[in-house]
């Protein structure tokens, strides 16, 4: 939108408005479809507004499976992963940035090299491993393989390394132990990095479909995205109003989060780009 020519400028704005509409309208379509009845779904030409709105679709979608359970499981795994990741990454980041000991750099390279091992490379062997020890269909199967994050360790180490040693020396003189130094002094200073990483981790694991799909066959530990995807395999015919109502369970929380923390979330995803 940099041109000074008003005609060019309004053309650019019009173009951007069309793109924005193409990006956003489908979400409106989820909402609209979720409030129609079967007749409205297959009506031709389709109507833009669901009149009268059929709110009962939401109840029907919610009751098509153990959705309270799915939601609970999503919260447990997403935040379970986050808390363990942050705790372990902060400990390791402190050792990697503020202590010197033989083997430190080798260990750090090992951690960084794990960035190259995405879940899509690990799922087969981990499935076999967890099957052997009887941990499939448990929270452990969903949380433990993500208990450490190479990315989190890497980013928090960078943030910790930027903290001046004087601050730490002052804390040590005041008698703070390692845990206090890490969590009372360094974590607050490294807050921007920690927030950015946390948002990345929460968005990723809240939405994750792949890992729970592979590691669970049991409703008791299944998560929300998986539950919603299963809606499509139930029932027959054009149940799109029910499926889209279920889809709203996944979409709405992310939209609300984005509305509240847009700036932080975009930052979380651009954090490692070259500047």
């Amino acid at each position: 939108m940099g041109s000074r020519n008003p005609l060019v400028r309004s053309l650019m704005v019009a173009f951007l408005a069309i793109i924005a509409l193409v990006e956003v309208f489908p979400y409106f379509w989820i909402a609209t479809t979720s409030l129609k009845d079967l007749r409205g779904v297959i009506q031709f030409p389709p109507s833009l507004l669901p009149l009268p709105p059929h709110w009962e679709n939401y109840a029907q979608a919610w009751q098509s499976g153990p959705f309270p359970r799915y939601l609970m499981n999503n919260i447990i795994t997403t935040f379970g992963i986050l808390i363990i990741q942050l705790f372990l990454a902060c400990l390791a980041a402190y050792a990697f940035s503020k202590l010197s000991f033989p083997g430190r750099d080798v260990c750090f390279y090992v951690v960084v090299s794990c960035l190259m091992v995405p879940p899509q490379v690990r799922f087969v062997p981990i499935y076999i491993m967890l099957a052997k020890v009887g941990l499939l269909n448990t929270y452990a199967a969903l949380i433990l393989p993500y208990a450490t994050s190479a990315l989190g360790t890497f980013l928090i180490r960078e943030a910790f390394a930027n903290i001046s040693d004087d601050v730490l020396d002052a804390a040590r003189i005041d008698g703070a132990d390692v845990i206090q130094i890490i969590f009372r002094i360094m974590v607050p200073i490294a807050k921007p990095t920690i927030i950015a990483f946390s948002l990345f981790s929460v968005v990723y694991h809240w939405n994750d479909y792949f890992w729970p799909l592979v590691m669970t066959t049991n409703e008791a530990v299944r998560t929300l995205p998986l539950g919603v995807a299963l809606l499509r395999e139930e029932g027959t015919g054009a149940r799109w109003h029910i499926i889209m109502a279920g889809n709203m369970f996944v979409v709405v929380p992310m939209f609300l989060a984005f509305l509240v923390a847009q700036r932080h979330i975009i930052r979380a995803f651009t954090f490692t780009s070259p500047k």
Partner: protein
Amino acid sequence: MPNAISYRRYPVVRRETILGYALILPSLAVFFTFFIYPVLYSLYLSFFRWDMMMPKQFVGALNYRELTASAEFREVIWNTLRYSVGVVLAAMAAGLILALLLNRRTALSSFFQACIFTSYIVSWVAVSLLWIWMLDPQYGLVNYLTRFLKMPAQDWLGNHRLALWSLVGVTVWKIVGYPMVIFLAGLQSISRDYYEAAALDGAGAWQQFRFITWPLLTPTTLFLFITLSIATFQGFDIVNIMTQGGPVHATSIYVFFIYEQAFHYFRLGTASAAVVICFMMILLLTFVEHRVFRRGVHYTEVG
């Protein structure tokens, strides 16, 4: 005297070492169990034939030879290549154009950015279900639009030639916000001075782009190219939900193939060989990235 110093320092150093390992040990334990061991185990398993029930049978490099000779595997590689290249190029081109148009700190610009970026953080499940519905041959909105524009209706996901490109389109629709914000970050790091100097010398908009913006964006462009390549190479969700690899194998891409081999056909050896090849490709791409940036951090997720 030097002896005395080292004697005095010795216990201090040792304490720091113990503390250091105590702090990294929990992380290292997880990394070894869930990252390094799985890679080594895949390598080991790729030399066996195993269905998770009967005893493993050592077959040497047979799994690899069968894979490379298999027509289906070649089709999968070809699909993955087309999917990756299509998504990476289209998303980067669109992302760059949007970034150039939106490179302003106005309320309208942030509003458009938010609209476009949102899809990137929405679950693949939601996006896939939404687009099955949008692309439904009978009742879908897309075919309604094509009919409205007097174009023939299409079976977007059922047509052998079209299905993969439909998935490319949906993926680009979902992720284009990512290259857009990365390019925006790159653009904002370019000093205004260059443009002012160029404008004084009479350079037009195209020349400014060609000789200032594009060369200075090179690190960003390379970063995006490599991270998006790795990410699209790991695509799975969209295929599993939207097409199950079909019609026939038309949309079967790499990770979906591994998943099918392991969990539909219980060919763990074949799946492991494919995992090893996948890992080698990522290793290669990361090595290139590392060469370029001397800092191999990437965490984009696609598909």
